């Protein structure tokens, strides 16, 4: 019986070994961690022994969802899949994959807040959730099928409105670089193999219930309508990409690509995206014509059917494309949907090739990856492949007949058909190439003897611990750098980059930065970076706290927080308290922005203490929070126009100031005072016992 709104009050625990299904009280165990990554980290902290490997039976996989999923708070329905991560080497660290779509909302309608999965099934199974009727069904006939077919088979059994999260052959074959896919285009990187190791093919959810809003319905409506006046476009870009009659500013890099004369060209009949004045609540869904952003104006406009995305989101960042040659030439569906890396990544396999048929490679690559369930380790997989292919490494490490069997002539011509062979090898772990690319990238790089040169340039993407950079120094100098230190996978954080790239001019940005973090020095114009200061440390801390908050509430970190808005009459100010407002009204627990941020800080610190225990080091500063050499060595003199290079002293200062903001020691260890302030006394005790407390 739910005491609050938002949450359903019940968390589902499934033991695959025993087949036992239990309902836990969300409020008793997890309320202080909200849900999502918070709940996931709590389970890992409490229940998974240090040293457990990703594919061990003792690992757990948590589909974490928060109180706002299923509500009308714009841009929610995110699922955070927390587990011991297969992609690092050793594979003993906690990390999270994230997927959108409608899965999270449907689980809430079924009456569940999150799913904790433990153990290993004796044979392939899939988890069938129909409201409170939860059972493990035999998946032996589904096993071996790709995501698309498995999803359809489950929908045929459960009904077309059920939401499915499934692995493809890559996850089944324990490929570390594998995904969990929901809704055909929403992928959670890294988690597929863990499901495969547990013999869990998929989860199907059908929910006929409801998510309650505690507040008066007209108050809730007022808040929702207010928030929609502040929303921009994808990544909360708040200016259009081309001059528009209503807009004071524009920025060609903005994702607000709508305009009169820009169409969804493959709709029947074509639909004009139009002027999209920010006061028009009925054109929000047109603002982001992502097809033209991802594929270029010509192909993108001609072949975009419409935009799609997650439940409750008006932004629609998934371009839904129609291109018949995909069917004619390769036998895959002419219809393909995805966004950003889902498209770019397959194209990156041809990074060194000119004349690649890029659009076809993007669409075909999406199908192969999303059906096999292959992950790209945020493009590091392709970067390593291209480097190894071009520098004689594959010739050296692959057996001669395997090397000969690879269709290199297709690759050299930029023929997308190459991908048919390429991704199959990875999904089925065929040969040294297939196994190597699917494996933990660091392990492969060591085994193939990737030389030190590789790590010297940002072009090769490498950051640390076997994962690549993700909105780092090139995005926002020290702020991006600090964020990229924090995780055990590429830093899936967009709080900082959303604001940095809002499209507003420098002086407006400085005003907004001053308002949000206390000083205009919190913000530098892109490419005009300045030395480290304490406000940038505040921004970095705030960014990761908000990322954890969003991943725990089920809000989209590619949209929130709304530091900026498109409204000139507000001086382009957004409202960074929106998360707290949604939370307060939906759950009925009045919570201020600062109070909610404290919970986010608690969740972020829990990730930190788990990582410390797993790394078993007091020197987090150097062993975990490590910086690639290219940060110090690549590019023109630091702090000159266009240079992303940072001096070592500046980076060390950045770490010092960040740790200070966080209440950590100079080694990067949380202190007892900090942990107790955050309600993590037992974490302080455990760290102290292990000699790892700050």
């Amino acid at each position, binding site marked *: 019986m739910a005491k609050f709104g938002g949450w359903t009050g019940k968390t589902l625990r499934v033991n695959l070994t025993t087949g036992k299904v239990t309902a836990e009280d969300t409020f008793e165990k997890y309320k202080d961690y909200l849900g999502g990554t918070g709940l996931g980290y709590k389970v890992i902290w409490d229940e998974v022994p240090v040293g457990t490997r990703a594919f061990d039976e003792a690992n757990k996989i948590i589909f974490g969802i928060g109180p706002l999923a299923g509500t009308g708070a714009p841009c929610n329905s995110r699922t955070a899949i927390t587990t011991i991560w297969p992609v690092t080497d050793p594979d003993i660290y906690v990390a999270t994959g994230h997927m959108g779509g409608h899965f999270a909302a449907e689980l809430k309608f079924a009456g569940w807040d999150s799913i904790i999965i433990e153990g290993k099934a004796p044979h392939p199974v899939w988890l069938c959730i129909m409201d409170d009727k939860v059972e493990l069904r035999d998946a032996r006939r589904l096993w071996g099928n790709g995501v698309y077919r498995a999803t359809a088979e489950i929908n045929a059994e459960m009904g077309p409105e059920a939401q499915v999260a499934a692995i493809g052959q890559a996850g089944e074959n324990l490929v570390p670089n594998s995904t969990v896919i929901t809704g055909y285009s929403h992928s959670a990187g890294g988690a597929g193999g863990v499901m495969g190791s547990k013999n869990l093919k998929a989860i199907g959810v059908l929910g006929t219930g409801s998510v309650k809003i505690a507040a008066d319905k007209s108050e809730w409506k007022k808040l929702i309508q207010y928030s929609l006046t502040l929303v921009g476009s994808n990544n909360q870009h708040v200016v259009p990409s081309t001059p528009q009659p209503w807009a004071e500013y524009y920025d060609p890099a903005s994702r607000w690509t709508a305009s009169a004369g820009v169409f969804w060209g493959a709709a029947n009949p074509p639909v004009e995206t139009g002027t999209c004045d920010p006061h028009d609540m009925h054109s929000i869904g047109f603002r982001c014509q992502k097809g033209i952003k991802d594929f270029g104006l010509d192909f993108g406009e001609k072949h975009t059917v419409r935009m799609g995305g997650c439940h409750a989101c008006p932004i629609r960042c998934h371009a839904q494309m129609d291109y018949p040659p995909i069917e004619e030439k390769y036998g895959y569906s002419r*219809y393909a949907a995805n966004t950003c890396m889902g498209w770019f990544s397959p194209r990156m396999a041809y990074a060194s090739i000119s004349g690649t048929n890029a659009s076809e490679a993007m669409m075909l690559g999406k199908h192969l990856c999303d059906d096999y369930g292959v992950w790209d380790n945020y493009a590091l997989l392709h970067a390593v492949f291209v480097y190894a292919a071009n520098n004689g490494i594959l010739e050296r490490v692959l057996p001669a007949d395997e090397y000969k069997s690879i269709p290199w002539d297709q690759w050299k011509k930029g023929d997308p058909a190459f991908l048919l062979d390429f991704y199959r090898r990875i999904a089925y772990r065929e040969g040294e190439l297939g196994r190597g690319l699917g494996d933990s990238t660091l392990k492969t790089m060591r085994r193939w003897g990737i030389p030190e040169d590789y790590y010297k340039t940002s072009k090769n993407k490498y950051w640390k611990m076997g994962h690549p950079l993700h909105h780092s120094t090139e995005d926002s100098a020290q702020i991006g750098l600090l964020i990229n230190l924090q995780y055990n996978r590429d830093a899936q954080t967009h709080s900082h980059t959303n604001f940095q790239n809002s499209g507003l001019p420098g002086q407006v940005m400085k005003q907004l930065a001053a308002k949000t973090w206390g000083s205009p020095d919190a913000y530098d114009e892109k490419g005009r970076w300045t030395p480290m200061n304490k406000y940038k440390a505040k921004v970095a801390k705030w960014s990761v706290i908000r990322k954890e908050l969003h991943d725990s509430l089920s809000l989209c970190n590619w949209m929130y927080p709304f530091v900026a808005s498109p409204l000139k009459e507000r001086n382009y100010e957004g409202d960074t308290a929106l998360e707290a407002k949604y939370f307060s009204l939906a759950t009925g627990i009045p919570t201020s922005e600062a109070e909610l941020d404290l919970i986010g800080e608690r969740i972020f610190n829990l990730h930190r203490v788990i990582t410390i225990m797993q790394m078993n080091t007091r020197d987090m500063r150097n062993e975990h929070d490590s910086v690639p050499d290219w940060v110090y060595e690549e590019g023109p003199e630091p702090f000159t126009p266009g240079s992303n290079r940072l001096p070592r002293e500046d980076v060390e200062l950045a770490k010092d100031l960040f740790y200070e903001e966080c209440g950590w020691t100079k080694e990067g260890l949380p202190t007892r005072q900090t942990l107790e302030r955050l309600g993590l006394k037992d974490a302080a005790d455990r760290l102290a016992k292990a000699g790892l407390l700050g």
Partner: protein
Amino acid sequence: MMDERKNPAANIAEFFGVNRPTSRRGFLKLSAATAVAIYGANILASDQVKAASGIYILEDAKGVLVSDPTRCVACRRCELACTEFNDGKSSPTVSRIKVARNMNYGPQGVQFGFQRAQGKYGNFLVIQDMCKQCPHPVPCATACPNDAIEVAGPVKARVVNTAKCVGCKVCQRACPWDMMSFDEEIGKATKCTLCDGKPQCVEACPTASLRFVEWRDLTKRSPVRQAGMLSVDDSCSGCH
């Protein structure tokens, strides 16, 4: 386009026979002349006219929801608005505008060759299902044993009177388009009320795919939804 006023008795009987077998003799007691007079007059003193034989005739609604599915992006904010702003909770099952059931595979549901059919897993076309505010005879209203579905509000929508509804669920099976909802949490049927002339779904739609327009008869040109009947639980416990 057929003008049903020219031959009301024959059309009504035919239409009616689909859902509830009624003695043709009994029905035709309503003389053709009376029917034409009532239909043709188009000026009714009250929403319901009790003719000589005891048949209630509901006045046409004044507005109806229509949509342009090429603009539907399947955000489902219409379902959210319908239930959060009317019922204080979010529930696609209760939602009186229905997108979820067509979203993934189209109205036909899962089939072989689904990648060429409609919906997110096919050609991306998502059809929103909306109540047509049927003209007389209104199937849901006629089916209700308690006359709990009435014409109400400024736009004369067909509305469930929850005071009269006993939760028997017969209306759920009567609608040829499977548009009736049932709120299990309160044990009552519910349906689209057009929100007293300011539909929440239309207000919420971020692509203006939904419109609220002057009423026109959509019942003769909309294929019925067979899948709906099949998905209803046929066991006795489905209703009892």
